[in-house]
């Protein structure tokens, strides 16, 4: 976008970058805040239907679709309370820490090809690293509230999130291995085409890994049945017992933001990202480079695809939440350490062996995009780097160019 501003509108570079950065940041903020509004309403409706109730029906007409907005106004009007014994500075800063972590992870999350705040070469890694920081706000809140319920909740959350990062990381490594890159854009590009190209259906091991990922993702964003940190039957409200009003709502925006984030990550890693189940755009002859309108149309469809998949993921989390009872803390730990971790490790090995034994998949008729980034790294028979597909191996090309430039430099 900055390039567009510089080249087309003739803005100076610093202004163009500023505008681009502000637009990206505001858009991400809207994804989180607007998403939270919609998802909170959806959660109440789904909870109602699952429990044989109607949910909100009156605010804003037929389906109560203005309920979240009314809730928001109520939260704004609430008194901002702080316990006497609380550590004021930490108590105030904790919701922002949670929210910032959730927000930062969105920076390198691609919504469609090139529709990404900042394309990072280590996108997956960055998202996982930043997502783990969200718990920091929860721990600060639990400590600063000067309440035993809050501290209990925070400690549970810390133990849970730190444990579940292990199997989550192992699950995430599998698509990274298949794509040969940690760049989220590259990973999603590798799954272009029919839905059989999705890493979910790559082999039986990745299919299992996906479900382990779902389990760990639900646990790492602290949703039922893993919501030990706010177990209201035991801990009043857990870490946010002492919070009210807007500060409380920041925690929830962070939570819904993270839910959307891990769902979008699941879509990108396992379900083709912005590539739909049926490559409509390719069948219609619309592809990158056929003209500006088609170009934007393809991206718009991709955007709809990704947001649709991520929303499905969030709805599934709600379904799980209102169906399953809450686990005990020891059961949570057992699930993580005795089942998820060994299973993820075994599936990781299995996927690796499958990739060595059957790199083309079981059904060679279906076209798979060339996933062999590794081959591109090896010197070809003629002693030069083999030509690579420019779209699917973006980072390989850039580094290859750098290598070529270096060779040229040495030669001269």
């Amino acid at each position: 976008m900055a390039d567009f501003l510089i080249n087309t509108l003739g803005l100076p570079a610093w202004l163009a970058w500023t505008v681009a950065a502000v637009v990206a940041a505001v858009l991400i903020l809207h994804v989180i805040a607007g998403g939270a509004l919609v998802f909170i309403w959806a959660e109440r409706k789904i909870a109602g239907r699952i429990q044989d109730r109607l949910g909100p029906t009156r605010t804003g007409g037929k389906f109560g679709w203005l309920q979240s907005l009314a809730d928001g106004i109520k939260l704004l009007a609430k008194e901002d309370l702080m316990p006497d014994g609380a550590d004021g500075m930490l108590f105030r800063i904790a919701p922002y820490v949670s929210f910032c972590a959730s927000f930062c992870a969105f920076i390198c999350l691609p919504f469609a090809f090139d529709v990404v705040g900042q394309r990072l070469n280590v996108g997956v890694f960055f998202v996982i690293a930043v997502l783990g920081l969200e718990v920091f706000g929860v721990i600060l809140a639990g400590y600063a509230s000067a309440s035993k319920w809050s501290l209990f909740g925070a400690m549970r959350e810390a133990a849970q999130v730190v444990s579940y990062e292990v199997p989550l990381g192992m699950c995430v490594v599998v698509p990274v291995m298949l794509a040969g890159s940690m760049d989220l854009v590259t990973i999603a590009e590798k799954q272009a085409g029919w839905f059989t190209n999705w890493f979910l259906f790559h082999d039986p091991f990745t299919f299992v890994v996906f479900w382990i990922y779902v389990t760990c993702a639900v646990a790492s964003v602290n949703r039922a049945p893993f919501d030990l940190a706010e177990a209201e039957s035991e801990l009043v409200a857990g870490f946010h017992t002492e919070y009210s009003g807007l500060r409380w709502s920041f925690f929830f925006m962070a939570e819904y933001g993270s839910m959307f984030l891990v769902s979008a990550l699941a879509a990108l890693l396992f379900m083709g990202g912005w590539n739909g189940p049926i490559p409509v755009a390719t069948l219609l002859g619309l592809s990158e480079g056929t003209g500006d309108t088609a170009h934007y149309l393809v991206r718009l469809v991709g955007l709809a695809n990704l947001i649709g998949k991520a929303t499905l993921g969030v709805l599934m989390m709600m379904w799980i939440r209102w169906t399953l009872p809450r686990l005990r803390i020891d059961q949570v730990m057992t699930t993580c350490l005795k089942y998820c971790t060994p299973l993820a490790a075994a599936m990781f090995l299995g996927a690796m062996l499958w990739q060595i034994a059957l790199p083309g998949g079981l059904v060679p008729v279906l076209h798979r995009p060339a996933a062999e980034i590794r081959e591109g790294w090896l010197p070809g028979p003629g002693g030069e780097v083999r030509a690579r597909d420019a779209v699917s191996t973006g980072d390989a090309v850039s580094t290859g160019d750098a290598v070529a430039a270096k060779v040229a430099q040495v030669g001269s």
Partner: protein
Amino acid sequence: MMPGIATFADAVLAAPLPLAAINWHSFFFVLFAALACGFAVAVVAAENVVRMALYLVLSLGATAGLFFLAGAEFVGAMQLMIYVGGTLVLLVFGVMLTAQAPFVSIKGSGRDKVVAGVVGAVLLAVLLQAALSVKAWRAPAAGVVADPAATPIGMALVGVRVDEPGVGAPARNVRPGYLLPFEIVSIHLLVVLVGAAYLARAKRRKIPRAIDVAASAEPPASVAEHAAIGRDRQRSGSVLAGGR
């Protein structure tokens, strides 16, 4: 629409702006550096353990920002994952182990502060002298800077160096990569992990639990015998207590 915006932009640019051109790179470098240094000082100055941890996290996070600014994305993400995430665990255990009143608030005496200040100043002087004495670091970087990519690191770890001019060179000139150090570190970490699990395992009970004893014992023949067993257990006290 576009010409309109262009003329608007020209008009804006024609106006005398106080900030004619901001060098965002320098701006963010100064910002992150100031944040890192400021919060580092705050870690030392704070008296509360948890606040110290917060400042440490912010300082380390600002350092990660510097890495990202330098284009070292992998190192930056590593910094976030290991140092910032590690501080989190440190905080949890720090709070859990030192939650007693004398440790929550740490106040150094005046003498401590003087000694710490002198040691810190000497260390800073040595580091600055060392850093500034390297000529190559003072000149702006010249030459080709590759796009940041984590793949060469990963490839080097499994034994293939793609960042060296070994591409196209005869095989004997290709450097071996970091496979051996990587394996050594992996085995080392595995040993540490197994050792930690061994130390933290649930200890086997030396004294059987009362319920196991009751389950394995022969049923008492008479009421009097039953009462005798009960008395014995009460006297020894350990069996019924579960033997922890």
